[in-house]
């Protein structure tokens, strides 16, 4: 079965964008509320000034998330881009760039590759059969892929910490 090489915008499902928007909204509100708290404006700013600041900081958080490439949340919210044709693996690829080259190549990139492969397989099945089950499967693959990435990161951090402690113990 031929895989689609790019994810067509039609595959960016409304509900999935909605979930991302909700998550981004929660994150944006958290960030902006934290900003208000850190800046210490609660004491002497009037209520509307405080609200305005929250809105501005939330918009900045959305824009920042959009620039990071998390699907279509940030820029889409600002009305600049409504759908995204980017693979969800792109964000994970970017996250993995924070690790060392060796760990990125050996651990994180294969996890992202598996996510992309399984998603493309599910989308190819959807394209061939037209059954929505495969669309749901593609969504599930993305959710599971993010979970796998989190597990890999957690396991790698634990291992690195254990090695570091061992080295410290040997040196001491």
């Amino acid at each position, binding site marked *: 079965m031929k895989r689609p*090489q790019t994810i067509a915008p039609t595959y960016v499902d409304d509900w999935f964008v909605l979930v991302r928007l909700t998550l981004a909204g929660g994150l944006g509100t958290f960030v902006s509320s934290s900003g208000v708290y850190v800046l210490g404006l609660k004491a002497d700013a009037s209520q509307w000034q405080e609200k305005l600041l929250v809105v501005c900081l939330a918009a900045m958080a959305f824009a920042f998330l959009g620039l990071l490439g998390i699907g279509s949340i940030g820029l889409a919210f600002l009305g600049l881009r409504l759908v995204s044709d980017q693979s969800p693996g792109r964000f994970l690829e970017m996250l993995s760039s924070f690790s060392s080259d060796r760990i990125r190549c050996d*651990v994180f990139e*294969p996890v*992202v590759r598996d996510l992309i*492969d399984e998603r493309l397989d599910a989308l190819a099945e959807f394209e061939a059969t037209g059954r929505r089950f495969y669309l749901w499967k593609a969504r599930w693959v993305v959710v599971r892929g993010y979970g796998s990435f989190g597990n*890999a990161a957690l396991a*790698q951090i634990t291992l690195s910490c254990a090695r570091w402690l061992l080295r410290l113990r040997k040196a001491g």
Partner: protein
Amino acid sequence: MTDMQDIPRLSKKERLILDHLIHRGEAYGLALVKTSGGELKRGTVYVTLSRMADKGYVESRQVKERDENGPPKRVFRATGHGARVFHAWEMAQAAWAGELG
């Protein structure tokens, strides 16, 4: 006398992976997960494989398919050292089982 720390050790997951790679040839991480019957997880299999590569039990190479977006695939295979360690472990297990039986 050999220092106990010099003796190669194999965890259950490492044995499972080496068993697959020695008897069925090179494989992708996802294939290892799918054939393990739930013993290996998608997230942690690559951490285990990376650790095994550090120990010299497995080696890997990148496979970039034509017209493919995203990072390349990685295929793993057992090294000679990995195979020796696995066979030594099998012999030790057989001897231990014989002694008990």
